[in-house]
């Protein structure tokens, strides 16, 4: 796994993009839960 990522650096970048989107998604999810409580 580590060696594969070391050889194919573009996947490291993709992993980073994935991390950012996951983070933003979790934030949205939390807003959604707050809304649900209000409803």
């Amino acid at each position, binding site marked *: 796994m580590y060696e594969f990522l070391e050889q194919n*650096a*573009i996947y*490291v970048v*993709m992993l*980073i*993009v994935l*991390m950012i989107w996951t983070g933003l998604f979790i*934030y949205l999810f939390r*807003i959604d839960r707050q809304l649900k409580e*209000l409803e």
Partner: protein
Amino acid sequence: MWWKILLFFWIAVLSAVAIVTPIAGTLGDLAGVAQWSETKMIPMRFTVTDRGGAADDGGWLLRGADEDGREADFHFATRPDGLDQAEGYLVLARYDTEEHRVEVAEILGDYPAFAFPFIPGLEERAKIIFFHVPMSWMTVVAFLVSMWFGIQYLRKKDLEDDFRSAVSAGLGLLFCILATTTGSLWAKFNWGSFWNWDPRQTSIFVLLLVYGAYFALRSAIEVDEKRASLSAVYSIIAAATVPFFIFIMPRIMPGLHPGSADDTGSGPVFSSGMDAGMRVVLYSMLLGYLVLYAWLMRIQMRLHRIKLKRADVAL
């Protein structure tokens, strides 16, 4: 409604462009790589100037020019495909210092009109700049906005300003965590370890601590007005010391990020290897995340107003 869809496409398309766009070097890059490695191949692009002919060893020898206009001989193992129509190629190649010609290992595609420059030591990993740098800038922006609304609260004593300040700090914390994790994952592959205590890593770590302390302080005070003014004061004090990290420390201490004290060939934040295309993509990405931040702020504010209304009705 329309701008939200536009925003989605803006960020999605820019991300795709950033990932898909090939990295392409020049003859100068090839020569630079050849100085420290004889076998290392890098992607490069060139236009064919003379279609050449068969070489002595059964391969194919043609002449081409790179984007800087420098010419060289290109040696292929066999006659390249589509040579009669091809205007140029993107190839994986190295410079042979004995034969004084470019040794092509593989044709990656046609000459790409848009490509990012080859940066020694970073290569494909240079693309992190489009994702990681906006995150760290947004961290600072969110922090400044939070401080700004803190000041507004102290001036006008409007609790809504305090809530804006807190929401902005929350978003800043999110961006800060993202910047730290993405950065340290990248550092593992580029610098060999997840954390190196480079000045910029230190400063993002301090911002993380400041955000943590800010929320710890907020949760420790019950009275709304007191919480608002004290957290505003704390964020201003913290903001007064943050410039020491972001602007002064990295200049004094040697570091790994571009713009450190021992890095001579670059500007304040970027590596010298960035060209106009990279800058445009980076700034557009930054704009996208800025709008996303404003949108998330607005959603939280609407949520807050509904909550206040509910509380009023309940009373």
